């Protein structure tokens, strides 16, 4: 059977979300116009996560995609927590003190982040207190450290990633008296997640990447054509430097067993990730935690299984690679996406499709009545039709949806084939994962005028 176009649209649009940065937010002019994001599940439930938030106590905006594996627990936790760690790492000493004092005296906290969430993007209520306490311990340590230096974004990103991964690991080791929470922290630690996070502040764009999600900049050349610039390196077997790094960190004797079938220890695709304590803890620690853990964990074959050739852990790190890019007026948009997109589409095509989409929507030919005889009803019909066309099959209102439509529905000629799209979307749950992966996309659009103005100032 086939899905009708409206059915296809309702599947594609179920998770779409758009945020426009207000031109007047009362504080400053943003180099970000807004962003579109969307997710298409292949796993049930989906294991990808996404996050977006505006930093309220410092400047800038954070956006990220997280690709989970062995369950969604780790990706979920990272999507909830990582931005707080980054925001806290960026905060000046005084603000940290103020926040700590507020917590100490039970006063209301300064809000740190303004989240931009789709209604389906949830936060775990049960773990919030636990997460908060870990975060608080982190800022207390930052307060004690007080280096007195201004915070470097690159360093802040690296520290935040490492710290959160460390906290995930510690929480699982310590456990929690509440059995639900205890099981939760263990699931978080034993599952894994990549993270690809962008921090935009004025013309300064930082991308911190751990794993095989990818950030790509869409650049409009002088002749109007589109090209792609990578702003992250995939951490997987295809990346020679990455393979080299892993080999450097372990004795020569393990060289052969480290990477097998393009996987870490023959098991894991991404070479860097959050969680995945099976690749980080010593065998003794793994055994102790699993045995003292709840029955569900103990009975799970996956958690009990120790990777082969496991001699010198850790084999895995959450430390990101950070790339800094100064935005230029020709840099029109940024695409953050999990590997579900990149394995179906070449980045050059992504740049072209998004670029043409973003300019096309804004350059619709205006209507002029001129000398023609047009009735109000005809005009109304025409306008309604134009509005509908924008939101129809070929004119999504959301750049991420548009990209997913192409990623899933493109035929050999690079155009969306409705039949193919319909087939791909109507695959039964158990088959879907064979044909496609979870796809999560965030398209951030930049304000070239603002970026141009920044440039002129410098």
């Amino acid at each position, binding site marked *: 059977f086939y899905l009708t176009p409206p059915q296809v649209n309702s599947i594609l649009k179920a998770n779409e979300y758009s945020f426009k940065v207000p031109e*007047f937010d009362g504080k400053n002019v943003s180099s970000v116009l807004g962003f579109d994001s969307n997710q298409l599940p292949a796993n049930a439930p989906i294991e990808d996560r996404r996050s977006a938030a505006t930093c309220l106590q410092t400047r800038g905006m954070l956006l990220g995609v997280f690709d989970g594996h062995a369950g969604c627990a780790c990706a979920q936790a990272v999507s909830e927590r990582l931005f707080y760690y980054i925001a806290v790492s960026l905060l000046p000493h005084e603000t940290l003190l103020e926040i700590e004092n507020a917590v100490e005296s039970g006063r209301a906290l300064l809000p740190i982040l303004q989240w931009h969430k789709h209604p389906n993007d949830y936060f775990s209520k049960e773990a919030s207190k636990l997460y908060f306490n870990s975060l608080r311990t982190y800022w207390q340590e930052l307060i004690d450290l007080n280096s007195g230096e201004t915070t470097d974004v690159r360093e802040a990103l690296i520290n935040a990633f490492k710290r959160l991964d460390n906290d995930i690991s510690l929480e699982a080791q310590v456990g929690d008296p509440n059995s639900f929470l205890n099981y939760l922290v263990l699931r978080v630690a034993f599952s894994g997640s990549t993270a690809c996070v962008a921090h935009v502040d004025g013309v300064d764009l930082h991308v911190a990447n751990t794993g095989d999600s990818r950030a790509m900049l869409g650049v409009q050349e002088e002749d109007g054509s589109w090209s792609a610039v990578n702003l992250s390196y995939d951490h997987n077997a295809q990346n020679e430097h990455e393979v080299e790094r892993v080999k450097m960190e372990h004795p020569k004797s393990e060289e052969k067993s480290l990477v097998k079938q393009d996987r870490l220890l023959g098991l894991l695709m991404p070479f860097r990730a959050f969680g995945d304590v099976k690749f980080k803890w010593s065998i003794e620690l793994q055994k102790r935690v699993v045995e003292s853990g709840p029955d569900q964990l103990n009975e799970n074959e996956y958690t009990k299984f120790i990777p082969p050739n496991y001699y010198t852990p850790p084999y895995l790190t959450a430390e990101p690679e950070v790339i800094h890019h100064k935005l230029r007026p020709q840099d029109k948009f940024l695409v953050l996406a999990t590997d579900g997109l990149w394995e179906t589409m070449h980045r050059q095509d992504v740049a072209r499709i998004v670029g043409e989409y973003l300019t096309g929507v804004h350059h619709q030919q205006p209507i002029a009545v001129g000398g023609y005889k047009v009735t109000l009803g005809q005009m109304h019909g025409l306008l309604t039709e134009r509005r509908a066309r924008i939101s129809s099959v070929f004119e999504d209102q959301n750049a991420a949806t548009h990209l997913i439509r192409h990623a899933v529905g493109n035929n050999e000629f690079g155009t969306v084939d409705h039949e193919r799209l319909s087939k791909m979307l109507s695959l039964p749950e158990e088959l879907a994962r064979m044909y496609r992966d979870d796809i999560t996309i965030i398209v951030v659009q930049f304000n070239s005028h603002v970026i141009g103005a920044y440039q002129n100032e410098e």
Partner: protein
Amino acid sequence: AAGMFLRLLSDIQWRAAHPKWRRMTSSQRSTSTTAEPHPVSLPAQAQVVICGGGIMGTSVAYHLSKMGFKDIVLLEQGRLAAGTTRFCAGIVSTARPVSIELKMAHYSNKLYQQLEQETGVQTGYTKTGSISLAQTQDRLISLKRIASSLNVMGIPCEIISPKKVLQLHPMINIHDLVGAMYVPEDALVSSANVSLALATAASRNGVQIHERTSVSHVTIQKGRVTGVETDRGRIQCEYFVNCAGQWAYELGHSGEEPVHIPVHACEHFYLLTHPLQEPLSNSLPTIVDPDGRIYIRNWQGGILSGGFEKNPKPLFTEGRNQLEIQNLQEDWDHFGPLLSALLRRMPGLEALQIMQLVNCPESFTPDMRCIMGESPTARGYFVLAGMNSAGISYGGGAGKYLAEWIVNGYPSENVWPLDLKRFGTLQSSRTFLRHRVMEVMPLMYDLKVPRWDFQTGRQLRTSPLYDRLDAQGARWMEKHGFERVKYFVPPGSDLLDLDHSKTFYKPDWFDIVGSEVKCCKEAVCVIDMSSFTKFEISSTGDQALESLQYLFSNDLDVPVGHVVHTGMLNEKGGYENDCSIARLSKRSFFMISPTDQQVHCWAWLKNRLPDDSNLVLEDVTWKYTALNLIGPRAVDVLSELSYAPMTAEHFPSLFCKEMSVGYANGIRVMSITHTGEPGFVLYIPIEYALHVYNEVMNMGQKYGIRNAGYYALRSLRIEKFFAFWGQDLDAFTTPMECGREFQVKLDKGMEFLGQDALLEQKQNGVYKRFTMFILEDHDTDMDLWPWWGEPIFRNDRYVGKTTSSAYSYTLERHVCLGFVHHFDEQTGEELVVTTDFINQGEYEIDIAGQRFQAKAKLYPFSSLFTQRRRKDEVELSGYQRE
């Protein structure tokens, strides 16, 4: 015919310089003359130069010449009535929520009605009436409120059922309506022709009109207008009137000394159609459908329909751009939602043929009210602009008031809500204006519930404690760019609910404010009142005292350390300002006045203080943070923090002393609270603000201290019958009329401004009296709440309007303050209002058409005063406008 409508004006031969104005007929209008009239040279001097030949400029010229001014020149850069006026939709509508705007529109309507007869120029005046539709109950309430104020002004107006709408206008779809308001005397005109008629009459009265003459800048010397530079030479003049419409801002900024006129243009679209098969009658009423964001009028057998969309397009932010004007194009996609609303309201128009979508820029102001008056920095520089797309409705009245202002020194009505001086330089930022007008334009048709606030252009002026208060749950409103706390949301309350529940009924914050009021009564509260205007006046000798004694009605020759409440009165004894003045030393004074007095009061004093370098006036508003400690325990908090005794023997009421609070020294402490409750206001040099606030909050803990906001303050001051300037008091209200004779010292031994007028009132009595009303049969939970502007009825006859209202948590009743007049039952003539007249009457307050019994009082409940004070020490002042 449409082409004619748009072109007809440019075809007119405008022989402005001819002393005998050629009488125009419609046949002459359509015959275009090719030869340019030979430009007549400009006069070298004139008494008044008006810049702008639209409805505003011609109306000012008309009224000035009628009032006897002869030597007037009107300059227009293009052709007369060729700007926004040419494109104006021509609807004269009196249904205005602001009373002064309503009066202007009413006058305009009467003026235009007889204009054709007076001038012989066809104005197209047709009395069609107008119908404002309500799709929701809340909208109907807001219409009922307007209907109440129209009715008491004698303007026919009724609330009608949807069925009646259909009878009046058979094409209207009424299925989604809950009611409507019908104003039968509203009219349609050709706005350009009205403007030409006014110009014709003005020209006959001797006004010289020059087209194709543009003003490059106005010259100002020693704070006075001296002349105008144009592209055709210079004209010396005494008065200049800026009626440049959307160019008013730029013209104001073109001179060396800028005059700040905060207007910004937005594109405005309306649709013209060909006639219907059976042409629409030209007497069909105009339809305003604010919930659909559109208006519809009949036009040459077809319709003209425009609206105020949610997503306006501001333009000319960077300034004038001729190219852009010519390129202003139809934008059908933008107009789409309005077209949908139109077809929903009049489905029968589907087959009607489009003639044109007109794009006509309109200028908007930061507060949705127009701008008139004299520049605070350049005397003789007058402004009339920023009509928020109601230029034709206001044109007649606005021109009249401005002419009166020039001729008599002030208009015949209180125009403070429209006064240019309500703005300062701070509203003159282009970014601010761009963002604000994007909010203002949709607001034209948005439902406005009590206590609504602008959301754009915020957080501009803030107290140093802003972040601290914000983190404690403060909810903010804005006055003159300054953020002020309304109330504090306690932790755990659902914040979203509070922000979104806007209502004509009991609001969500009722209990929150109630607990703040309770704390003020029983313990102590802190309110940040830093926004108040603060001036210092000092001199080397007695100049300061002498000048102030003349400018203020109370006796300021008091011992050092005393605080005096006094009016700053005009010649007629009316309040130009209401202040508290502390005598800091023999030769220096500290003056506190309302937030929005910063520009007006400064200009008033500057213009009247002697030009003496030994007398210094300084605006110190930004130097001090003000904390108001209200409540019986304020004295304990302060004495513990200062190690100084603060009891009434040591620190009597209405006293001011510099002292230390915590580590900080030099804090000005005044024993006033602007509410009648015991307490102190601390004027703190800003760098100490956080320290003092922290000390006060820490020390106050054991006395139950908490933060409070202006809503609590308002409830307290209204139940104590305190009048606030800008809300209750204005330039047409004297101390005698509001029970403040004790603040006037007629025998202080020297002459002061307004003295003669007050003496006369003292002898002959007053014609209105400030009165307090306690609502009797009003259910706080179920009934509509009063706001302000509600009609007051005495023995079933209209006697005046309320000026402010609040729920008194002490009396557990609503309290309204307002003025009672005494109109003669036969002639309507105003009679003296006596105490007996007030006391011997049955009163009712009309809230959106529903009347509630009220008890009138001329004195506050003495039981509300917790401390006994000497009679003349009773604090009766405060400043705030909600």
